[in-house]
């Protein structure tokens, strides 16, 4: 398959189709709408299910229903829409059915705006709904990575019977880059042994998130926690750029990761040894590797398009004694490489002064 020019949202849609998507349910919201629009034609032409729901609330519950039958199903939305989906996400997590969700983040809180933002890091990693659960969260920085991760997301969702959220800011949804599409997978005919397919020649099956007894609900929770522990063990993903000799380590995800990479190069041109650590899995957060790196760098600078959310995870990883700095912009303002460079230069100067 040759490289083709893809818009992020449409690339995510096509890669999902190729992963064997059986059903899509969604609701329009900028800046993810092209994903829904693309599938409205593609899915129908393939004879697969596509439905524009009456709300995000309905969309996520349609997804929940289809997921109970063991088919590959997804929805996509942007920040305010994800808030509406939180009810369904909590039920889905408790029911342990696999679901893929794409979140193309925009400025918040409230109606906010439609500009790119990373303001929902907490929402997707910590608080995707009520109760104790964490979705598996993957954050691409390029259109190609968005394609690869959403393709992988369906496998991970099935493997762990969990929600996988592919989260990106509006930049990645809206931008075009060359990308290579993965091969078209056949839609799987067989269904998993927990799926609702009709009680034909077997006991009837029940999928529920209700456990009235405290101990039984605790047992369900313990099972979820065990699963989360397995995910923490096996699904950590990150990318490093010139960290080997770095003095200052910039930690940033998604679009900010690649902008920081440019800033690090600019800093190196000025004699400052900067490197970039880009978490790809936001949950599980690559805390062990970051802790390791903290022993060889002098300072960590966290850069985000928010008020400092991944910052918490970085601080948890490296401990309170390690100097961590933060630079962020909000409301849809995207820091440019020279904005980041300015902070790196300031830190560089401070480190020089300390050494004198």
């Amino acid at each position, binding site marked *: 398959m040759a490289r083709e020019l893809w818009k992020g949202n449409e690339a995510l849609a096509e890669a999902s189709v190729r992963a064997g998507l059986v*059903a899509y349910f969604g609701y329009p919201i900028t800046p993810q709408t092209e994903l829904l629009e693309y599938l409205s034609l593609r899915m129908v032409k393939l004879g697969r299910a596509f*439905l524009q729901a009456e709300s995000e*609330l309905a969309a996520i*519950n349609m997804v929940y229903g*289809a997921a*109970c039958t063991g088919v590959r*199903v997804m929805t996509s939305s942007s920040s305010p829409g994800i808030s509406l989906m939180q009810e369904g996400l909590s039920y889905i997590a408790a029911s342990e059915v696999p679901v893929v969700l794409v979140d193309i983040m925009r400025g918040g809180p409230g109606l906010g705006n439609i500009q790119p933002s990373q303001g929902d890091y907490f929402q997707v990693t910590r608080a995707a709904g009520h109760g104790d659960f964490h979705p598996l969260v993957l954050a691409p920085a390029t259109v190609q990575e968005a394609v690869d991760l959403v393709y992988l997301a369906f496998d991970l969702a099935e493997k762990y019977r969990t929600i996988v959220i592919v989260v990106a800011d509006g930049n990645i949804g809206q931008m075009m880059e060359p990308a290579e599409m993965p091969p078209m997978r056949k839609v799987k005919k067989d269904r998993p042994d927990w799926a609702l397919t*009709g009680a034909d020649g077997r006991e009837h099956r029940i999928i529920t998130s209700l456990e009235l007894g405290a101990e039984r609900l605790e047992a369900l929770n313990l099972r979820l926690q065990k699963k989360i522990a397995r995910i923490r063990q096996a699904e950590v993903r990150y990318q490093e750029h010139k960290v080997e000799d770095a003095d200052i380590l910039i930690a940033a995800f998604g679009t900010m990761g690649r902008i920081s990479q440019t800033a690090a190069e600019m800093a190196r041109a000025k004699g400052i040894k900067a490197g970039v650590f880009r978490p790809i899995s936001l949950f599980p957060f690559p805390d062990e590797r970051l802790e390791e790196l903290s022993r060889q760098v002098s300072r960590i600078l966290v850069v985000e398009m928010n008020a400092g959310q991944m910052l918490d995870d970085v601080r948890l990883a490296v401990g309170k004694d390690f100097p961590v700095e933060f630079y962020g912009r909000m409301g849809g303002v995207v820091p440019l490489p020279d904005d980041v460079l300015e902070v790196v230069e300031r830190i560089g100067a401070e480190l020089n002064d300390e050494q004198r």
Partner: protein
Amino acid sequence: MNNAEEKLVFERPRSLTDAHTHYCPGCTHGIAHRLVAEALDELGLRERTLGIAPVGCAVLAYYYFNVDMAEAAHGRAPAMATGMKRANPDKILFTYQGDGDLAAIGAGEIVHAAGRGENITVIFINNAIYGMTGGQMAPTTLEGQKTTSSPMGRDISIAGHPLRMSELLATLDGAAYVARGSLHDPKHIRRAKKAILTAFKVQQAGLGFSMVELLSACGTNWKMDPVEALGWIKDNMVPYFPLGDYKVTDAVKNL
């Protein structure tokens, strides 16, 4: 007469499990469950049926129906059924919902499922009260009816009017079959069964959305004994929620 022939005249429908239900004495959920189960048995649909339980007294219905079932979030059963049906057009889908579930928190989902002509069957239990949470006002609570959240009786100037869902949904082009029955006496129970059979036949034929509303008793929260409660349906609910077919498309008539 040692060789008297044994003749089976009554048995548990295959579509019901042998679990004891948790419903109160005098509650009509058991009757409604049985009618749905008999209909699935008679039409030979059990093995390919997927059901969705609501939030409300019937939240545990998945223990009682011997079919594959899922439990929905409050009010979202029609959306969930939509997802299941769209991904599995060969399955038979039913939701079982109470008045709070369907007419209050899930009013959006039911209207759009009906509007789309979603090929699912909805069993709507209307007992004019919230049962599970202990007797609060429902969207179908009658004017003047006392509940724990309308202790002086439902005041229209505060709480507005009760919703007639069958009438409302019947106006939508996607609705193929909408009927209201009652479970207050054997004659009406037999009629209700017929309506439920029709609703599933509508779905089997792919004709669109079907719903059967069943006026039901909640003696516990109405604070009445079972017989009194059945009488209350007849005397108070039926006049406000008239029984009958509200939508029967030509295609359904020709079934």
